[in-house]
């Protein structure tokens, strides 16, 4: 029998609300023992299925790696359904099955001015990206969010060239944020744009990146059952009209590869 260590049962080390309002808003840092993963590429993800799921829910849940150290794997979880609700009620000592690191992560070009565009929980992979970037002076963040800023791991970006946050409280805020995205992307013609967040946000980023001919990658959050290429449930249409697998060929894609539309 070979050494098959990509899927492990590990202990929950902690489940902590993020900031003073984290518990009320359902924002948590879930920290598990490192299942034995080697260093991951920022933007890769893991599948997590706590023993508490039993047979319902059936699927594990995919999460971007927020932080991976030799001792621990940390995930940023926002409660949005029954699966994430169960995950955020776990206590230290509970067990979860974890497999990964999965998929393709973000490009890392240390000397190229790089801007991370994050929407909501899409901030998670950029924590790992910023932590591992050798030239933080070339790195900036633009973050759009709805919940209070303290509900997100925004402090992780204090050492960068810049980190801007925009809270959306109404339609005017959204329009202003999109205008700022356009200015930011247009100003990165010689740089690299990375984006993670809800689909409409990624569609906007892709449209603007094409408009200004900026090299850009987006990380998709498509629904997945297995995470390993077994179910073909998470596919996305590419520019050739074929379907590509988000779990193995993504979740990070160059925008010119995809025919990204609002439909999920």
């Amino acid at each position, binding site marked *: *029998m*070979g050494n*098959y260590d*990509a*899927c492990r049962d590990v202990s929950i080390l902690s489940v902590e609300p993020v900031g003073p309002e984290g518990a009320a808003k359902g924002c948590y840092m879930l920290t598990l023992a490192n299942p034995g993963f080697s260093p991951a590429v920022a933007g890769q993800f893991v599948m997590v*299925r706590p023993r508490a799921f039993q*047979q*319902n*829910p*059936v*699927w*594990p849940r995919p999460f971007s790696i927020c932080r991976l150290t030799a001792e621990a794997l940390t995930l940023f979880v926002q409660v949005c359904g029954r699966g994430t609700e169960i995950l955020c009620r776990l206590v230290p000592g509970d067990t979860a*099955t974890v*497999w990964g690191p999965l998929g393709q992560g973000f490009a890392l070009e240390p000397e190229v001015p790089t801007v991370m565009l994050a929407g909501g929980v899409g901030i998670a992979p950029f924590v790992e990206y910023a932590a591992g970037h050798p030239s933080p002076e070339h790195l900036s963040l633009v973050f759009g969010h709805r919940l209070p800023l303290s509900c997100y791991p925004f402090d992780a970006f204090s050492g960068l060239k810049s980190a801007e946050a925009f809270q959306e409280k109404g339609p005017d805020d959204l329009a202003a944020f999109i205008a700022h995205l356009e200015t930011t992307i247009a100003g990165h013609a010689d740089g690299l744009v990375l984006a993670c967040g809800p689909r409409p946000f990624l569609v906007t980023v892709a449209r603007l990146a094409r408009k200004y001919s900026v090299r850009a990658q987006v990380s998709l959050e*498509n*629904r997945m*059952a*297995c*995470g*390993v*290429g*077994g*179910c*073909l*449930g*998470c*596919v*996305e*249409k590419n520019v050739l*009209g*074929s*379907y590509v697998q988000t779990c*193995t060929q993504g979740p990070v894609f160059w925008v010119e590869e995809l025919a990204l539309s609002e*439909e*999920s």
Partner: protein
Amino acid sequence: MSVDASVRLPGMELKNPVMTASGTFGYGLEFARYGDLRSLGGIVAKGLSLKPRAGNPMPRIAETPCGMLNAIGLQNCGVEVFLRDKLPRLPYDETPIIANLYACDADEFAELAGVLSAAEGVAALEVNISCPNVKAGGIAFGQDPAMAGKLTEAVKKRAGDKPVWVKLSPNVTDIVAIARAAVLGGADALTCINTLTGMSVDIRTRKPRLANVIGGLSGPAIKPVALRCVWQVCRAVSAPVIAVGGISCAEDVLEFILVGAHAVQIGTANFMRPDMAFRIAERLPALMEELGIENLEEYRCSIQV
């Protein structure tokens, strides 16, 4: 006590009865990182068509209580790519690799059977006459006994010495009638069951959760239906039955063997954790020992009704 978990099926011997179900294990290679493919009783590859198929629009999957719906629509790389790029990398010399076939009509099914029967490394052909997610072919063949019989006959004629399994749908009034027709048509074994047709809707968006509107329900939720179908079919036909439907532990495997199945396939449980089939295969001998079962042939169909 030493136990024997091996199983004999027409034309092959399995080291254990735990196989993987088509459409839930990719082409096998996707799961090689999570366990030794050689430890499985068999691998049923993703359904193949003559030409590559793109499959259905998104969204294609939805979660349901104790189960899931899918409308993948048989996306696959086509038989040529499978034989050239996938099969040679599978341990077919130690673990039977079963090719699952899909086509739009009987002639195409027969042509596909001809191509696959000539391939070294394909141990058997599993004919999918029961996919609920495609318009042409698919379940239409599996709902009419006469059509199921004729189709089986057409495939069998082109299958050479490769055993032919026919995968049955539960979405029929009388599954036994279809099973009998398939066996009369020459089926060497029956795979029982494919997914149940189902639907899920979102009351907020007022949209169905699948682009295809309806899809195939699988997972632990369907196990009682699968068990009933396997029991009914095993009593009615002499051909071996390979059970599939909601199996997620070694105890489930024995339940199906108890009602008459020769072997099983693990489907949706492969999504619950990618090493699930390997774990079940590994656990089964210990469970047999706990229950005092020396071999599966002795235990098979020993249900006391």
